């Protein structure tokens, strides 16, 4: 235990921890309970009461209604994650390992890109997507997600790559490694941890996006599942279980990734903002 605490303080500490844990868990537990009840059950016996019968019909309805959009989410998210992590890693490599004029300014340039509100570019990107003929396509979302992933990935990777010991790079250069081989064969494999963190972070960010999809798509069938569940909730206003099941299905991919790679996720959140 860090620091010394009296018994009373210890009890108070755990009470506070548990109360806060209830606050954090109650919303998702409620959602799960709602999803397996019937609406009649909710209306007659209350929302949090024990289900009179297990209702999985809500999940069937939600899956039927959302499976196309789930697929869209994967089609958008997977290439965007890999593209943004790959090109972001290049920037991270250049910013951490090369000496050139304006290097610090360039770091600043990417920090600004990470911090500036998305609202600043909605209108121009809507017009650009239309002009390029990619409005309402997967490609528009993939390109935009990749571009907006560059700042956070490159800063995360820069902060990691700067810690790679010089000897490793010197040895590789003595062996005749050029810049490109150095990047692909030495730096990238060493940066596996940071690359994983960036991938996890980008997966959850991109999967969870709503605003880009709203601005850059119109067709219901190509929209990601985040947009679909909002529409779905409007459709099933009086059918809470189906709404809840839809929300759960839409959350599972990022939630599972988060659960498995919790430490990477945490490192990613911190890694991009430290210096």
């Amino acid at each position, binding site marked *: *235990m*860090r620091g010394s605490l009296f018994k009373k*303080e210890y009890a108070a500490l755990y009470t506070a921890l548990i109360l806060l844990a209830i606050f954090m868990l109650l919303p998702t537990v409620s*959602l799960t309970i709602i999803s397996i009840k019937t609406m009649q059950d909710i209306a007659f016996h209350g929302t949090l009461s024990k289900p009179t019968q297990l209702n999985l019909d809500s999940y069937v309805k939600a899956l039927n209604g959302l499976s196309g959009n789930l697929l869209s989410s994967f089609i958008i998210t997977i290439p965007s994650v890999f593209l943004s992590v790959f090109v972001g890693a290049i920037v991270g490599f250049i910013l951490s390992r090369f000496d050139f004029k304006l290097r610090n300014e360039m770091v600043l340039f990417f920090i600004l890109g990470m911090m500036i*509100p998305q609202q600043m570019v*909605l209108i121009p990107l809507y017009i650009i997507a239309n002009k390029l003929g990619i409005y309402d396509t997967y490609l528009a979302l993939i390109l935009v997600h990749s571009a907006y992933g560059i700042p956070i990935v490159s800063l995360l990777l820069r902060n990691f790559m700067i810690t790679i010991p010089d000897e490793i*790079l010197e040895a590789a250069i003595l062996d005749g490694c050029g*810049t490109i081989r150095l990047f692909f064969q030495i730096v990238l494999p060493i940066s596996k941890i940071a690359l994983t963190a960036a991938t996890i972070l980008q997966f959850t960010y991109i999967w969870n996006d709503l605003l880009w999809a709203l601005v850059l798509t119109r067709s219901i069938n190509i929209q990601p599942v985040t947009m679909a*569940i909002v529409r779905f909730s409007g459709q099933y206003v009086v059918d809470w279980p189906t709404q809840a099941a839809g*929300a759960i299905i839409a959350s599972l991919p990022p939630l599972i990734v988060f659960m498995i790679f919790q430490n990477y996720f945490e490192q990613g959140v911190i890694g991009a903002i430290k210096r």
Partner: protein
Amino acid sequence: MRLKIDLNALMLLAIPLTIYLIFVIFPILWNIVISFTNMTVGGSYTFTGLENYIRLLNSTRFLNALKNTLMWFIIYLVFPIGLGLLMAILVNSINRGANFFKLVYFYPLSLSFAVIGIIWSFIYEPTYGVLNEILRKIGLGFLAYPWLIDPNIALIAVGIAASWRELGFDFVVFFAGLRAIPQEYLDAAKVDGASTFVKYRYIILPLLKPAFITAFAITMIRALKVFDIIYVMTRGGPGFTTEVLGYYAFVLAFEAFDYGGGAALSVILTLISLLFIALYLKIALKEEVRY
């Protein structure tokens, strides 16, 4: 060791830089230009100077959105920052169960605001809503309330729903900051017989200053960007009581088709966020934040 930049390095850099310039930097600059025009759908426009800005600053709807954003700052100061700090301090004080509590405190950060909006709509709903049901169960039924329908409460209610997710971010930043404090400092305090309060007030909190400023700046920027949760839960209503700047910018551009006005509003949003970006950079570039 720093390498000399060569043709290969430039070639590598050309890919990301091109994407970044086309999709990030050019749109930012173009948006500034649009903010000085009367552009609407269709694209033809004339330059109107500062007219959009003057119009916005004189409109009660803009001032209302500004007021709501300032309120959102306060909500985010109390919940993500205040509660996130408290959670970090609590988890940092224990060994047993620390990993469990950590997971429970920051998993909502992996959920989308679309999902969080749906979850919290179930919580605030007046008739079957979770919050009112719990209040009735514990004998506080008189407090049951139509949370999202009352114009005086809705903004705070939505703000708390958003905070439930966002506090995970501040928790992680503060927790990392606490973990970075050398154990010797705490041991020294123990030997001197310092109470827990004294230890935190005079040793830990001062050392946490860089983490605090980082969390504060980024959380305020996140407050300025707020859009999704408003779109999912209230669409700015009832009336305009939950319309914040980030949401109003979208409405102007994509519902009123006032591109000039929407662009001007987003420039104002960006100018405000630059204040917080500057604060963050001051810490990040000068004081060496180490987590």
